[in-house]
């Protein structure tokens, strides 16, 4: 071969290697995404990989997992229906004060997790908040402000100390008649984590699950960098107050801008403080960041109900848990370890406390 031909051949080989590397990369970055409405929200799953069929099957299995958890935790199923029969929560509620109910392993796991955070938060989080939610009408179409003595009476039927979990027999009992479970702050996150684990089991390495704003990411994004997750501005639609850079973790938000109503010039929202019976009023929005989406879901409610300083102290105490919040008076605060993975965009409406 002449010298020139050799040089050309070498250059072409280099080009070939670069091109093949790119083809390989773009093959691994094939996207498959799908939307489904479940658990009263829109769930979007986006996955990346080589083979479309594998991606499609993995996503179908993930949704099936979510549907299964949704059925177990559905508190609104009507007696006599198939949905009622498959709802552990309905059966537990129906037999409150009567006898223990045999439940699915996942129902038990959710309740064990819930009780753990009830103890850790000293009662600021309580899955037996059902009677209060009913009294306020937050499950139905016409929420309203109850009378103070009604709230006082309902509070007597709230308290996780009377939720009896028997892990050996896999049974659950609400000790007093009139008690009622509400897994609204647990099930969506738990189901999201289950879905993610199902994707992982099918070999998926890059995924994003958005369950009505509960975010769980697996691996890195399509550009091989941390996923960029915005945190919604609690007062302006389509705006954000911060961006989180996340890898293989979840971010769940609890905020005061959902499911609310106005009475006497005051706005009331659906996240009740189970100790007082009234909506928690310390924060506009809180975002809990931790790997497990089930834990993040519960923690977002725990942190929302607690006063900001207490919430931040608790977050610092828990390993692998981070917190971003906007207090009721518009101050943006976050746990120390979030620095470096967070861009705050306070705008004109909020102040940013950088002391941590």
């Amino acid at each position: 071969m002449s010298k020139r031909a050799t040089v050309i051949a070498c250059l072409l080989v280099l080009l070939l290697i670069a091109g093949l590397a790119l083809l390989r990369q773009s093959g691994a970055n094939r996207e498959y995404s799908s939307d489904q409405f479940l658990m009263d929200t829109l769930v979007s799953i986006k996955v990346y990989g080589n083979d479309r069929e594998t991606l499609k099957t993995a996503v179908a299995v993930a949704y099936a997992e979510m549907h299964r958890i949704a059925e177990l935790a559905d508190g609104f199923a009507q007696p006599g229906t198939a949905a009622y029969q498959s709802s552990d929560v309905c059966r537990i509620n129906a037999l409150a004060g009567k006898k223990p109910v045999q439940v699915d392993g996942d129902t038990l796991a959710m309740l064990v997790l819930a009780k753990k955070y009830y103890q850790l938060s000293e009662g600021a989080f309580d899955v037996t908040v059902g009677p209060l939610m009913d009294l306020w009408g937050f499950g139905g179409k016409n929420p309203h402000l109850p009378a103070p003595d009604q709230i006082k009476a309902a509070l007597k039927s709230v308290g996780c100390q009377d939720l009896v979990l028997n892990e050996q027999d896999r049974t659950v009992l609400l000790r007093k008649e009139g008690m009622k479970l509400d897994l609204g702050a647990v099930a969506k996150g738990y189901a999201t984590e289950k879905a993610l684990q199902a994707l992982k089991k099918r070999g998926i390495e890059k995924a994003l699950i958005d369950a009505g704003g509960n975010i769980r990411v697996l691996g890195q994004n399509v550009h091989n960098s941390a996923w960029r997750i915005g945190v919604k501005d609690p007062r302006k639609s389509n705006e954000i107050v911060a961006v989180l850079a996340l890898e293989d973790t979840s971010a769940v938000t609890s905020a005061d801008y959902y499911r609310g109503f106005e009475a006497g010039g005051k706005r009331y929202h659906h996240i009740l403080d189970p100790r007082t019976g009234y909506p928690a009023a310390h924060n506009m929005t809180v975002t809990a960041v931790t790997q497990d989406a089930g834990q993040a879901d519960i923690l977002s409610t725990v942190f929302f109900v607690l006063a900001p300083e207490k919430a931040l102290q608790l977050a610092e105490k828990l390993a692998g848990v981070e917190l971003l919040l906007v207090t009721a008076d518009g101050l943006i605060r976050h746990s120390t370890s979030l620095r470096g993975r967070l861009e705050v965009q306070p705008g004109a409406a909020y102040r940013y406390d950088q002391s941590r």
Partner: protein
Amino acid sequence: MTRADKVLLVGILLASLVSGTALYSRFFLDPVGAQPIQAVVTVSGKAFRTIALQSGARSSFVVQGRQGASKVEVDGRRVRMQQAPCENGICLKQGWIEHPGQSVVCVPGEIVIRIEGAAPLDAVTR
């Protein structure tokens, strides 16, 4: 050059052509930037309509969701839910959207309006 050299050279040339095309299309033909911004409307997860968002163009159309007829309004590069049959009207309050990655979601009607394209954010927690 021997015959084998020539065969090798032609082989390398052909393979390079393929990979060169891949490189070119990756770096010079930006598939996202080249397309106009589109809004996609889905009902119960199935595609209903795709709208090109271009300045100056105005239109509106009806979408049959699970709760009945909703109306989508397009005004140039932005789009919104204009009318909805449900009681809470959360989708109406979400207002206009115009940037890739933004969406309007009506849960009772199972309708989603989403702006496609390279979004600055992968998702928003809310």
